[in-house]
């Protein structure tokens, strides 16, 4: 079903694509606009809005069922230096998908990688970690502390 894979699946690439997808569009845009000299690129696939059918598992861990759809935007770009990148991001923000693709391409280039690794990927990852940590702390603050009532009986 899958077409020819263009590239090897590396845990590293999966990680940065995940960070780019989970970031909010405005965070991605801000990080991109903060770059000193963003490279030139052209679109291999102009940003396209579509849907992905989200599957769940019956009972939580059984076979799949179709839960519903989510909107997704995808884009593919090629840098002038030749690297191609793709973006698949939840939502309908075309710019988000395009920047994700450009950053994906830059991360594959030894020359360009240093300029985005810290300023985009690490920065977005930090924001996501903080968001997650804050939610986990708020959740922990609502954990119930049970105490048992001890009934004391007077002897006799």
């Amino acid at each position, binding site marked *: 079903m899958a077409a020819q894979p263009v590239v090897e699946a590396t845990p590293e690439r999966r990680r940065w694509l995940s960070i780019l997808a989970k970031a909010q569009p405005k965070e991605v845009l801000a990080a991109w606009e903060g770059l000193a000299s963003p490279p030139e690129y052209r679109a291999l696939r102009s940003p*396209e809005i579509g849907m992905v059918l989200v599957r769940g598992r019956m009972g939580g861990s059984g076979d799949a*069922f179709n839960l519903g759809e*989510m909107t997704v935007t995808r884009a593919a770009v090629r840098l002038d230096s030749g690297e191609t990148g793709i973006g*698949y991001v939840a939502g309908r923000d075309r710019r988000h998908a395009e920047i994700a693709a450009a950053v994906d391409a830059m991360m594959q280039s030894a020359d360009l990688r240093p300029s985005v690794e810290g300023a985009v990927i690490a920065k977005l990852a930090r924001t996501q970690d903080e968001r997650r940590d804050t939610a986990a702390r708020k*959740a922990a603050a609502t*954990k119930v502390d049970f105490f048992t009532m001890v009934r004391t009986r007077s002897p006799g």
Partner: protein
Amino acid sequence: MAYVAVKGGERAITNAHRWLAEDRRGDVAIPEIETDQIREQLSLSVDRVMSEGSCYDRDLAALAVKQARGDLPEAIFLTRAYRTTLPRFGASLPVETGQMAVRRRISAAFKDIPGGQVLGPTFDYTHRLLDFTLAANGETSVDRALEAEEPQAYPMATIASVFAHEDLLEPDTQTDEAPAPFDLTREPMAFPAGRDQRLQALARGDEGFLLSLAYSSQRGWGSTHPLCAEIRLGEVAVEFIPDELGFAIEIGELTLTECQMISTYGGGVDTAPQFARGYGLTFGHCERKAMSMAIVDRALRDAAAGEASAPCQDEEFVLYHSDNVEASGFVQHLKLPHYVDFQADLQLIRRQRRDYAERAAAMKEAAE
């Protein structure tokens, strides 16, 4: 009977829609509500629209709520209509709710569930007294939620994993080479329905309908006596395999609500007694819906076992009537002109009345 051509009404319709737009806006002296205000402050309306509209997109759902003037079934209809205009890139890998970044997780059945009872942002235990400070003019200051020193441990054990070693809870099955799950958006409803078809229909189903069915089951129409084994709310990553990559990548994160209902099953010749399970899963925070879905899923499993006796155990009754876009369309189409039907009924009734009068007159004559 001749057909009567009915045309016209275009001007009336245009003017009606123009008035609708004015009414939607309400008093222009009051600032217009923005869709991001709806997304942030009416988030549970947004969640319901995403769930039953069967399309996860908070901004889209907020727009639908605004356009529908807060009428949620209408907003759900708008969302469903919009989703038909988009291409489908494919299907995700199944989301792993066991890996959820949990904000809320409770078990009403098992007090000492590992990870504890985490209440999260809940209406539970509020006194349901109207808070008039929210109606005061100007900004109301909100105290930020407290943060504990230690974050909630991740991942949080599921109720199924807690009892797995004892086989007390019916286990889930994962089949190698399982066929693609039934897809209601591409195939018509078919019976008997598999659990995949049922869960998809219930996930899109009307919250009110499922709530009432679940309630009927609790009250004795169908012998389900469920306990709530687990409810969890939080964020789950979605993985998808793009054709051009050929390997799975995360494409985003969804807020989901999951509910596990359990009820005792006395066992059979080949099976030991254990807890049978019902499952609910929704987009967003839709707890009432997830609980109702789980109870109805559990009740419908009796149907599969040939034990159906109540409405909530009748899968054709439940699945054919759970979709509020279809239901609302069929009920509300009665508002559209039925002039010809009425003419036919009118002729029939007049003839029947004439016959009746003639018979009555003949009987009276005979009696005299």
